[in-house]
């Protein structure tokens, strides 16, 4: 056989590579994909229901914050917590080096990964939102801004996790960082509760971290008058997205 002489560049080559890698990602995860979607959905919906038990009689404001914050948690958990662990696992098993030897543009791998994360987290987010609307009488107003907000949150969350997993060479360190991240997201970030319930210094730190802006852009797109300044949140989040893309590009572009 003579090797094919098609051009390895151009948009159509990129698109075909993207689809091939996406198929690779989804096929590789086919055993765990349904269970992951299920667990994430149950965790999201469970969180919405559990807050009632925390309070006894849950105040309207608290319910609104948890129900909108849980959407962010379901959107970023896979990208920031599970994905770094998966990539760390690939490094241990050496699948990692094999993947980079494939004749596809490296950006397709990143975009395919964002798509995969979207596929996993969207059903969970939708279920959490549905349960929240059924369970509590919330003043929610879904606007079209939900779409860019969800895309930006998933993109940024996934790319931060992705950049982290690629940049840290020790798999065990990656796993440890991602474990701490989940505690940070659920427990120490103004996602599920207002920032003024955090100590002042921590609330200030969160103005520059990506978590609070993530919650802000999602909340602003489905509520009225809860988030005062959403433009700043988009800016901070955009900066994090750009930074994590740059980090990933530098790490992946490097010769080994």
């Amino acid at each position, binding site marked *: 056989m003579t090797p094919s002489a098609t051009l390895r560049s151009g948009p159509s080559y990129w698109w075909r590579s993207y689809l091939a890698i996406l198929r690779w990602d989804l096929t590789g995860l086919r055993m765990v994909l349904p269970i992951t979607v299920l667990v994430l959905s149950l965790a999201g919906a469970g969180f919405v229901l559990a807050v009632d038990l925390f309070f006894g009689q849950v105040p309207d404001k608290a319910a609104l914050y948890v129900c909108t914050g849980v959407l962010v948690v379901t959107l970023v958990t896979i990208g920031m917590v599970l994905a770094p662990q998966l990539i760390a696992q690939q490094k241990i098993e050496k699948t990692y080096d094999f993947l980079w030897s494939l004749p596809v543009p490296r950006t397709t791998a990143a975009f395919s990964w964002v798509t995969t994360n979207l596929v996993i987290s969207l059903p969970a987010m939708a279920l959490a939102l549905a349960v929240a609307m059924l369970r509590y009488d919330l003043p929610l107003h879904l606007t079209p801004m939900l779409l860019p907000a969800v895309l930006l949150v998933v993109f940024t969350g996934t790319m931060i996790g992705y950049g982290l997993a690629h940049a840290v060479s020790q798999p065990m360190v990656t796993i440890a960082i991602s474990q701490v991240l989940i505690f940070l997201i659920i427990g120490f970030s103004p996602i599920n509760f207002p920032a003024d*319930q955090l100590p002042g210094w921590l609330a200030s730190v969160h103005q520059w971290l990506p978590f609070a802006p993530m919650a802000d852009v999602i909340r602003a797109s489905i509520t009225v008058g809860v988030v005062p300044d959403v433009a700043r949140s988009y800016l901070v989040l955009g900066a994090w997205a750009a930074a994590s893309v740059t980090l990933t590009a530098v790490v992946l572009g490097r010769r080994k």
Partner: protein
Amino acid sequence: MTALALREPRSGPRYWLHSYGAMLRFDFTGSREWLPAFLLVQTLMGAGMAIIYGFYLGRMTTPVATFVATGAPTLSIIPLGMALLPSLVSSHKLEGTYDFVLSLPVPRMTGALSSLTVFTLLSVPGFAIALAVANWRYDIDLHVSMAIIPAVALASLMATSVGYGLGHAIANPQITNLVTNLIIFLVLMFSPIAFPIQNFPGWLASAHRVLPFWHMANVIRGALTNGLVPNVARSYEVLGLWTVGSWALVAWTMGRRR
């Protein structure tokens, strides 16, 4: 010479005690591998949750704060026995250590007792840290009575026994992993440990009168406060039943010929 030592009888209280000591050393030495990572998880679950629940609840009245502060130490006990121990047993099964330990010339009961001893003792530091952090954060008046010793001992022994039973009884490590994650989820979100059982819908409250989690919180809260827990004796009974039941399960799985 060693040949003589081999002829010593492999029975009797002296042999038993000697075996128990050897197994204790074996288990403590093995724990060095996972102890640091584990202490982190235990601290996060206990002390961390004490702080996190506070963020969720915002400004709290004293009774609510008291519940959170006296519930958090209980939370620190649970992951040790009910999540780490079963996954340790199942990873021993994967690595073949399980069969190796069973092949050691010691009475099988000493191996089980040594694991229970080690894990029951290891829960103490995490418990103390959680209690100290919760106390510092919420600044409430605790009345620590001597009952704290049997309360922590029994709660921890019960958690360890149930976890040990789970690890032995479930053959597939992946199912063990699933069950332990489910327990953590259930404990953190749907258990009346840091919140009064009155907040729970009737069916869930009834389930928790049979499950051990609420009773663990009860005996510990009973030893830390005055008059907040009405019927501690009943909780001690339920915990005792869970402990003995788990031992029966372990005895049955270990005694089986394979």
